[in-house]
């Protein structure tokens, strides 16, 4: 080791600490950490390891996945101070399994493109600065915040971080907290609220005998996919339930449907009324649960009319109605492809009307129980927040805006001019793990620790029956000493503002401990503070008491608008969310880039899905590049041709086409959200993501499609064979 200051003894000491020290950090009921930073000399050798840190043996610690808003409980396997693998926490409410996004979230934690230190804009470029300088800059520039001219723009937040954020906004006199999620169920929630008086009731897939879903991809990206996957498994066993999926492009859920129905985008409500019409006229379903005005509207939607508008054949409507009638209780859901239109609210209302007509409310749609700790509940996002923020930023309402967990510069359509509007804010602070588009347009970047390096609590937005506060604990020592958790940054800001009541806390961990100490005795179940904390961290969550709710039923207006032909832009653009890239946040994870899309099996790039008839008309074959053009711009990608997309639809997956966001994401694929036309759902104000009309043309370029597998069919071999549900019920039914 000539030329180096480290001698052998120091080196060994360091190695020992690297392993044991980090493992100690992640522990629950363990002695205080000894680290080199604290300058303590005590070295724990591997020869006498502590009980929980045996070299070569993995130990699991509970934490919470933050890769999507569902917030599933996880177990992280830690060995020699490194977290190696995540698995679902079998005890958690969302538990046991984990989706591919959760599995891949480790690559976010270990991502080579993570931001490792604060950065500030100097002469137009972001340059590394110290935390000291960063705080100084905040002091200088963010002083306007105190006059209420500040805002937070975040993704879903919950738990005690949410409490601190609210306290900070209070101190600043600003109530503006925009919570944005590109993938949300806001339109459905608005309808639920209006009809049932409960925005997020319990959808009991496990109790349903038939599920009719209008574009709700509950196995993929809708609300809480792992939770619904577990219920789906129950739904499919015993007296196996029937799944009918109506949507313009086959989603993961559509891939498992017994009957997959392609409806012209935006006409889902018409299809629902057509089904109601058949139920009332052919299946002797009693209409007394619906108001007369709704029955009058339904009577106008004869099969012929519905077929003309939606393209769904009359016999298909009859088949769906038969399933729903015979297999009671059923459950009707609606999701993004039905919601993302100017008439999205009406579509969702028509779907909910079917639930009322079929008597599902109270059977498969149950009142939710709400957690008593209201302030900890998830602030779940929608896209209206982004539109509102764009308008406010444009009007010069803010001196300083804080961004965290959302990337509006990437997800906003071109017509919103998001980058320009954000540029009008004099001082933009991004709290971020990655150099995404929004972060790179900020004036000050504060590096966040990963969800597996920090203390936090979170509450899943969808907890209809039982409620829990999910714990996040550091599974290992932070990879970079300069990163800080959201909780710690918020606490520092509160202290800096001189807000009362926070001075006593050294760090966010201390704050959390004290908050949990203060929980009511009923939650602690007789445990003392330390035992309660240990139990929470070991189990990974705290069961919270709930208040039970009730459902009312009042069906709103189910009238549907007319269908508009597209003119110069005859096709419908379907920007699809999927479990690989999600809203674009996963584009920096190589496992998910290389994971073939669940339906098309395409990897590492974007594609355009069209129907064989459309392809024939256009004269393109698989792999040809086509140009998809709206009145806002154009994108080009290779075509994938199959019969899982409506003849009039062009489906392009969301999530690729980043201009920033690290080596795996940047310059890879196209972003269909960019070319959306300006349209919102008229009732809820949500961005109408599926309302854009496009035309499609050949470019002449062609290349082999990056797709897994050679043959699309089994060529007669019994690789996957199929039996009828009757056979299944005879042999395995109850």
């Amino acid at each position, binding site marked *: 080791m000539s030329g180096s200051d480290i001698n052998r003894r120091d080196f060994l000491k360091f190695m020992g600490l690297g392993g044991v020290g980090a493992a100690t950090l992640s522990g629950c009921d363990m002695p205080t950490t000894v680290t080199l930073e604290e300058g303590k000399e005590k070295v724990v050798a591997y020869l006498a390891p502590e009980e929980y840190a045996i070299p*070569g043996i*993995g130990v699991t610690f509970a934490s919470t996945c933050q890769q999507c808003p569902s917030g599933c409980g996880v177990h992280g396997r830690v060995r*020699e101070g490194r977290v*190696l693998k*995540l698995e*679902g926490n079998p005890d958690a409410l969302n538990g046991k*399994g*984990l*989706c*591919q996004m959760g*599995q*891949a979230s*480790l690559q976010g*934690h*270990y991502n*080579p493109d993570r931001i490792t230190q604060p950065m500030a804009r100097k002469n137009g470029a972001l340059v590394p600065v110290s935390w000291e300088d960063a705080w100084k800059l905040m002091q200088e520039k963010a002083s306007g915040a105190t006059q209420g001219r500040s805002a937070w723009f975040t993704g879903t937040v919950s738990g005690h971080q949410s409490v601190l954020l609210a306290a900070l906004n209070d101190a600043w006199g600003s109530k503006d907290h925009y919570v944005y999620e590109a993938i949300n169920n806001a339109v459905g929630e608005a309808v639920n609220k209006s009809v049932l008086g409960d925005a997020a009731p319990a959808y009991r897939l496990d109790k349903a005998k038939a599920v009719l879903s209008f574009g709700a991809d509950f*196995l*993929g990206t809708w609300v809480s*996919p792992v939770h619904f*996957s*577990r219920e789906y*498994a129950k739904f*499919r*066993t015993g007296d*196996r339930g029937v799944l009918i999926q109506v949507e313009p492009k086959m989603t993961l859920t*559509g891939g*498992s*449907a*017994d*009957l*997959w*129905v*392609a409806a012209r985008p935006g006409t889902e409500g018409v299809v629902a009324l057509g089904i109601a019409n058949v139920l009332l006229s052919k299946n002797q379903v009693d209409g007394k649960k619906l108001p007369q005005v709704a029955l009058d509207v339904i009577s106008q939607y004869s099969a012929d009319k519905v077929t003309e508008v939606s393209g769904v054949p009359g016999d298909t409507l009859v088949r769906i109605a038969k399933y729903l009638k015979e297999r009671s209780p059923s459950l009707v859901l609606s999701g993004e492809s039905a919601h993302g239109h100017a008439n999205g609210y009406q579509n969702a209302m028509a779907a909910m009307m079917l639930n009322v007509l079929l008597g599902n409310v109270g059977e498969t749609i149950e009142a939710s129980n709400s957690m008593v700790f209201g302030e900890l509940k998830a602030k779940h996002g929608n896209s209206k927040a982004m539109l509102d923020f764009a308008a406010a930023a444009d009007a010069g309402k803010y001196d300083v805006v804080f961004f965290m967990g959302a990337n509006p510069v990437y997800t906003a359509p071109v017509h919103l001019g998001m980058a320009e509007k954000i540029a009008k804010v004099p001082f933009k602070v991004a709290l971020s793990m990655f150099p995404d588009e929004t972060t790179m347009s900020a004036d000050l970047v504060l590096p966040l620790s990963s969800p597996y390096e920090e203390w936090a609590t979170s509450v899943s937005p969808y907890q209809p029956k039982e409620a829990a506060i999910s714990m996040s604990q550091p599974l290992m020592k932070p990879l970079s000493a300069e990163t800080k958790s959201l909780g710690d940054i918020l606490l520092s800001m509160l202290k800096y503002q001189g807000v009362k009541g926070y001075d006593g806390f050294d760090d966010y961990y201390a704050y959390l401990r004290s908050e949990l100490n203060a929980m009511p005795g009923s939650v602690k179940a007789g445990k003392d503070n330390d035992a309660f904390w240990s139990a929470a961290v070991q189990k990974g969550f705290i069961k919270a008491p709930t208040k039970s709710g009730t459902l009312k039923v009042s069906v709103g207006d189910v009238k549907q608008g007319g269908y508009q032909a597209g003119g110069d832009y005859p096709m419908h653009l379907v920007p699809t969310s999927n479990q690989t890239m999600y809203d674009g946040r996963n584009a920096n994870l190589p*496992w*998910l880039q*290389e*994971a073939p899309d*669940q339906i098309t*099996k395409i*990897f590492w790039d974007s594609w355009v899905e069209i129907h064989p*008839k459309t392809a024939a008309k256009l004269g393109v074959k698989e792999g040809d590049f086509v140009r998809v053009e709206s009145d806002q711009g154009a994108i080009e990608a290779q075509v994938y041709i*199959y*019969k*899982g997309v409506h003849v009039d639809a062009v489906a392009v997956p969301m999530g690729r086409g980043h201009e920033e966001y690290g080596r795996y994401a940047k310059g890879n694929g196209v972003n269909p959200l960019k070319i959306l036309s300006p349209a919102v759902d008229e009732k809820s104000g949500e961005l109408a993501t599926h309302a854009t009309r496009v035309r499609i043309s050949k470019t002449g370029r062609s290349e082999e499609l*990056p797709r897994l*597998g050679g043959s*699309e*069919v*089994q*060529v*007669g071999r019994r*690789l*996957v*064979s*199929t*039996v*009828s*549900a009757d056979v*299944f019920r005879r*042999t395995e039914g109850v």
Partner: protein
Amino acid sequence: MSLKNILENWSHYRRGHEEGGHHDYEHMWGMAIDLNKCTGCNACSVACYAENNLPTVGKDRMRKGQGLHWLRMERYWDEPEMGGDEKEYQERGGSFLPMMCQHCNAATCEPVCPVAATYHTPDGLNAQVYNRCIGSRYCSNNCPYRLRYFNFYSYYEESWPEPLNMQLNPDLSVRDKGVMEKCTFCIQRIRTGKDTAQREGREVKDGDVVTACAQTCPTEAIVFGDLLDKDAQVTKLWKAQEVELGKTKQDKSNGELRGYRVLEGLNTDPCVMYLDRVREA
């Protein structure tokens, strides 16, 4: 194996797998995968990447078929011969098939290896000895399921730039250029399970070993276990479906039972049983 042993036990070693083979198996690790529950979500495949140090190879190499997805989620569209029809739309959704090494008891890959890098273990596993492998790729040629993956390049530098390399599982190696690899049924987990059982002075019991794919499956479609353990869930499933090892055609009392093994007519004797996909009509 001494010459004496071979001469004395000649008839034992000549016994085909249909008669139980010449192995005295300690375990027979196997699976049951219910395609009625499988949604094709691909979580199993990514879990396998995380557990088994699988490199990502990038778009061009993936396109050439050089991806190292030990567990790949195949998707097929219905065709007229398989009960589909010529309708305008794909009315019955897709057919999803999670495919990993089938750990055949009469594995076609094993006898063709010139250096015995792939062989059958007393656990019933089709094992691959990386440092014995010379990369002839005969095994891959001979696998009817196309489930063996070759390292055409060294991927470790490109695939795990720092600090991504810190995620690598130290329980198994990172493979280098020129070596064949494939699903091991998470042999490192099997070994841990057996070691733990031995330390605790007991037999390995059902649930001690769960593969990464089975653990993560959100619908619990994958069940893993020891087919020699009559109390194991997987054994019960095989029994209920009347699927037996050592056969090229299952003789079932009820022809409607859903269990089958992929391409079992080839006499590969796979240890993975699938249960038919189910559709309403």
